[in-house]
C-alpha cells in the first residue's frame, strides 16, 4: 500500500507555504522530511494528520480514501493534568473502547515502551526521554497505520537521541507502521531513514537515499542546506570553470550560477587522479576522530576538506587532486 500526496498547496494569509507537493510514501517504511526551519515541514505534517486542510490538492492512499496520521508532537504535549496512564489511554477513552480492552492495551504498550512503572506519575515528574516514550505510547496504542513525528529528537541530549533513534526503528518493524518524520538535522534523517525528501521553501527539491544526496545534491540550495562543503565562485565558459584556485573542465548542473562545489568528504585527495585541483599550503587541521579536517590556503582563498589523519603537516605545501570531475552549480 502507498500513500499519495498529489499537488498539495497551502496558502495562508497570502503566504504560499507549500507549493505543488507530490510525494508517494510506501507503507512500512520510514520517510524523513528534511529541511531548514520555516520551510513548511510542520505544515505538511499537519495536513497528513488532518489537523489542517490543504488549499488545494489531495492526500489519499490505495486502500483508504481518507487516511489520517497520528502525530507525536515536538514538545510531546502530554496533558499536564493527567497521569501517564490517562494520557496514554486518552484516544481509546474518547472513542469509548471497553474498559477491559483499554486496560489490556495499556499494559501491553507500556511494556513494549518500557514505561510500565511510570503509569501513575504525572508528566512533570518524567525525564525528557520518558516523556517521549509516553507520547509515542499515546499514539501507538491507537494502532495507527501512519505515524507522524515532528522534530522528535530535537530536545533530547546526544546519548538519548541515539537510543531513541534505535527505539523508533525497532517500533517501526515491530508494529508494521509507516512513519513520516520531519527534522532539520540531516544526521537524524540519515540514521533513521533510507528515503529522504528535501523540503526547502515549500517545495520538495529532491527525494533520494542519504549517500546519493550527499554526493549529488540536485541544486545549489540543497547543497548549501546540506552544508559540509566549500562553494568557490568563478566564471563559466563552455565546459570550463575559471576561479582563483581552480581552472579546468567541470560538470555543469542545470542553470549554473558559477559556484564550484567541493564537499568536505570524498572529493579532495592527495592521490594523483586525472583531475588536478590546486597547489596549496596547509594552514590548520582539526581532529575529528576517523578523519582530520584540513584547511588549506592559496592566495586569499581557503578551502576545507577531510583527510586521513597525519597525512599532511601544517605549513607544508601539497598538490591536491579531485576524486572525480568537479561539479559547478
Amino acid at each position: 500500500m502507498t500513500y499519495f500526496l498529489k499537488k498539495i498547496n497551502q496558502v495562508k494569509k497570502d503566504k504560499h507555504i507549500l507549493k505543488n507537493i507530490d510525494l508517494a510514501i510506501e507503507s512500512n517504511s520510514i520517510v524523513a522530511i528534511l529541511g531548514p526551519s520555516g520551510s513548511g515541514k510542520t505544515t505538511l505534517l499537519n495536513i497528513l494528520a488532518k489537523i489542517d486542510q490543504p488549499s488545494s490538492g489531495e492526500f489519499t492512499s490505495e486502500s483508504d480514501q481518507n487516511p489520517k496520521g497520528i502525530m507525536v508532537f515536538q514538545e510531546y504535549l502530554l496533558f499536564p493534568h493527567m497521569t501517564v496512564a490517562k494520557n496514554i489511554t486518552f484516544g481509546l477513552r474518547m472513542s469509548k473502547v471497553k474498559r477491559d480492552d483499554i486496560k489490556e492495551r495499556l499494559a501491553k504498550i507500556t511494556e513494549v515502551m518500557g514505561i510500565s512503572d511510570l503509569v501513575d506519575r504525572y508528566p512533570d515528574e518524567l525525564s525528557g526521554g520518558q516523556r517521549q516514550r509516553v507520547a509515542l505510547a499515546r499514539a501507538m496504542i491507537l494502532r495507527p497505520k501512519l505515524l507522524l513525528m515532528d522534530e522528535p529528537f530535537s530536545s533530547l541530549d546526544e546519548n538519548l537521541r541515539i537510543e531513541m533513534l534505535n527505539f523508533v526503528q525497532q517500533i517501526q518493524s515491530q508494529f508494521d507502521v509507516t512513519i513520516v518524520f520531519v527534522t532539520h538535522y540531516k544526521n537524524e534523517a540519515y540514521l533513521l531513514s533510507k528515503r529522504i525528501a528535501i523540503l526547502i521553501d515549500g517545495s520538495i527539491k529532491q527525494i533520494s537515499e542519504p549517500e546519493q544526496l550527499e554526493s549529488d545534491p540536485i541544486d545549489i540550495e540543497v547543497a548549501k542546506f546540506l552544508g559540509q562543503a566549500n562553494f568557490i565562485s568563478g566564471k563559466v565558459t563552455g565546459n570550463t570553470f575559471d576561479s582563483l584556485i581552480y581552472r579546468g573542465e567541470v560538470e555543469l548542473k542545470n542553470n549554473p550560477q558559477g559556484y564550484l562545489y567541493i564537499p568536505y568528504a570524498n572529493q579532495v585527495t592527495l592521490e594523483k587522479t586525472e583531475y588536478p585541483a590546486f597547489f596549496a599550503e596547509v594552514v590548520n587541521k582539526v581532529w575529528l576522530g576517523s578523519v582530520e579536517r584540513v584547511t588549506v590556503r592559496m592566495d586569499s582563498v581557503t578551502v576545507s576538506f577531510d583527510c586521513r589523519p597525519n597525512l599532511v603537516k601544517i605549513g607544508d605545501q601539497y598538490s591536491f587532486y579531485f576524486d572525480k570531475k568537479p561539479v559547478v552549480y
Partner: protein
Amino acid sequence: MTNRKNIILLSLPFCLFFLLFFLSALFKSLITSFGYYPVLNMKKFTWEYYISALSDASFLSISWRTFLFSVVSAFLACIIGMMIAITLYRHKKDRGIVFRITELPVMLPHIFVVIALFQLLSQTGVVPNILIHLGLLQSTEQFPLLLNDNYQIGVIITYLYKEIPFVIVSLMLVLRQMNDKYEVVALNLGANKFQTFWNVTLPMIQTALVNAFIINFSFNFGSYEVPFLLGNQQKELLPVYIYNYYVQGDITQIPLVMSLNMILSVFSIVFAAVLLVISKKIPGGRIGGNR
C-alpha cells in the same frame, strides 16, 4: 541569619496591619457574639445569641435566599464569562480594542450601572418607551418590573455586568498561557469537540474559574450597595438586613449582630474551602491550571 532578619522585616507591615485591624476586629466580634460586652457590663460567655440567631426564622430564610441568589448570579457570570472568553480567544479578539472594552466594567463602580438601569429599564424608562414606539407594547405597565422586583433581577443584571468581564479577564490570562496545541493533540487522537473541551480545555482553566466563582460569590453574598438600591424591601437580602440591624442604634442588639456576622463569616470560609478542595481533587487541580 540575614535571611531570617529579612523575613521578619518584610512580614512586619502585613502582620501588624492584619493583627490590629483584621484579626482584632474578628476577635472582638467573636467575644462580643458570645456575650462578652463590657460596655453594657456583660462579662459572661453564653451561646444565647447564637441560639437565638439560628432559631430566628426570618434570618434563616433571608440567609438562604441570599445564598441561592449569590450562587446563581456567580454561576451565571462564570458560565457566560467562560463562553465569551473562549470565543474571543478562538477568534483572536483577546487583545486590542475589544479586550480594552471588556476590561472597562471591572473598573467601574456598581452605581454607574444602577443609574443607567434606572434610566433604561424602569417602567417609565427608555427601553419600555422604545418598545411602545415600535408598537410592541401598548402601555408602560406591560413592561415587566425588573428593578426593585421580587426576583432580584436588577441586582443580578448589575452583578453580571461587573462579573462577566471579571471572569473573562481572569480566564484570558490563563488561556494565553495555555498551549492551545493541547486541543489539537486531543482532536488528532480522535476526541470530538465537546470531548476536547470537557477533558482538556476545562480542566486547564477550572482552578481559575473556581477562584473567580469564589470571589464573585463572596461579593454577591456580602455586599450592601446594590441590594440597597435595586433590591426589594419585601424580599430583603442579607447585607441590607444586617446593616439595618447594626445602624438602628439599639446597643443591646450588638452581640446578636456580631453572632450573625460570625455565622456568615464561618459559613463563607467553609463554603470557599469546600470549593477549593473539590477543585484540587477534580482533573486539573493538581497543576494549578496554568501550565
